[in-house]
């Protein structure tokens, strides 16, 4: 456990010094600041301000997760920094989990910074404390943790560039998978083709489960059970993906 924490802490320390990450964060904060001006000029109503803010945070967190997940672990292995770590009493599983939790900490930090900025903007525009907005950001964080786990999983067997392609594909699929079966049936797909569509539906994570932005925008209360269910769903996929990643990484020649 100590080794996982050491590697996680070190990952956090290194990533927050990364200029690309700092650039993304500054850009995201700038975007939220612009919301203040747009609120008066274009957005007019509070729900529009919330929508603009939450979508922006989601977009920038997705970029951050994609960037971190596809580069951080891969770089350590590819550039052989891992030689220093794995020649010490550290298992490959500890290293991989340490990287994952470290990257989650980075995302947690960026989410927290953006959440504070968002809450500030909403409060300034007269929306008070937007608790549902905070919950929507927490749900987004769960989605990003799953996204990170997938990016690390892909990084265990492919290059950084391919990881970006695969991880972007899962991001897209994850958002259309929930309507895939219904859409297939609506256009008359049956038999083996429908079986394949259903297989896709069950294999790929349904990322729409984490999207409660509409509820947050219109302040519709979300039952705690659905948050707990989403957390359990994310945990299931994260554990599955990390277990597969450890299995592959344990067998990888470095």
């Amino acid at each position, binding site marked *: 456990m100590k080794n996982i924490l*050491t590697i996680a802490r070190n990952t956090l*320390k290194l990533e927050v010094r990364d200029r690309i990450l700092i650039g993304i964060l500054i850009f995201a904060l700038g975007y939220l600041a612009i919301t203040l001006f747009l609120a008066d000029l274009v957005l007019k109503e509070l729900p529009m301000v919330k929508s603009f803010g939450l979508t922006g945070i989601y977009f920038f967190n997705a970029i951050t997760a994609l960037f971190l997940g596809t580069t951080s672990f891969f770089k350590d292995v590819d550039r052989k*920094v891992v030689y*220093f770590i794995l*020649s*010490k*009493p550290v298992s490959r599983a500890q290293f991989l989990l340490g990287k994952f939790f470290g990257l989650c900490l980075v995302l947690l930090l960026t989410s927290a910074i953006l959440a504070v900025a968002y809450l500030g903007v909403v409060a300034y525009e007269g929306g008070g404390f937007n608790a549902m907005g905070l919950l929507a950001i927490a749900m987004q964080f769960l989605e990003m943790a799953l996204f990170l786990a997938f990016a690390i999983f892909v990084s265990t067997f492919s290059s950084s560039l391919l990881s970006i392609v695969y991880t972007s594909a899962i991001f897209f699929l994850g958002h259309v998978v929930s309507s895939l079966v219904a859409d297939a049936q609506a256009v008359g797909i049956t038999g083996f083709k429908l079986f394949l569509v259903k297989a896709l539906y069950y294999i790929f994570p349904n990322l729409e489960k984490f999207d409660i932005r509409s509820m947050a925008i219109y302040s519709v209360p979300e039952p705690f059970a659905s948050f707990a269910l989403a957390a359990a769903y994310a945990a299931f996929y994260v554990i599955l993906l990390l277990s597969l990643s450890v299995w592959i990484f344990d067998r990888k020649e470095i």
Partner: protein
Amino acid sequence: MVEFSNLTKAYRKRRVVDDFSLTVDVPIFGFLGQNGAGKTTIMKMIVGLLAPTAGTIAIDGLSSASPEAKKRIGYMPETPYFYERMTGMEFLQFCDELYPHTGKNRVDHYGSLLRKVGIFAARDAEIRTYSKGMRQRLGFAQALVNDPEYLFLDEPLDGLDPIGRREMKAVMTDLKHEKRRIFLNTHILADVEEICDAVGVIHQGKLLYAGGVKQFCAGMPLEERFMAVVEAHEKAEKHEKR
């Protein structure tokens, strides 16, 4: 004592280390061989970075890849790569935290290690500003961070200027006097002659000779003797294939 028993590493059908058996119990042992002879592969297997296809490596009876054995060893990879945005001091601390703590003042310990390898003045500079020689020295320092009984150094003198080489050789000699055991990979014969108590000559993954340096040379210059052994082996192999 380090014991290699029938150690083999194969990639598909190609054997890069071939049935390698050896027992080493001298203060400084040098693996000698041309580029691609299998030296680095053996060292990576010792420290658990690669899994052998067959055979075992034991350090004082413990499997070398076990956590217990790893607590007792230090390893410096060939051409070390670092986290560029860390300082030398931070990197040593990170490496040290991967071992169970011993309780002594660690910051002083890191400082003394950096002094030992001659980069104390750059301790708070980011590693990306280090020269190749400084990186080599930092790689050496991190191998010492846990006060190891056994040191495995892969081409430790590569990239160092003549003064740096002399300093690092002096550090190795000091470590020898502290009763630590050092294994080093090198293709620089002069270094072997100067600091090693015994050598293992490796060629195409096979051990051709293991023993004292003087006995190996038998009155000939080391380079000449090394080439003679390698050429004789290649001749014998060609003859066998016919």
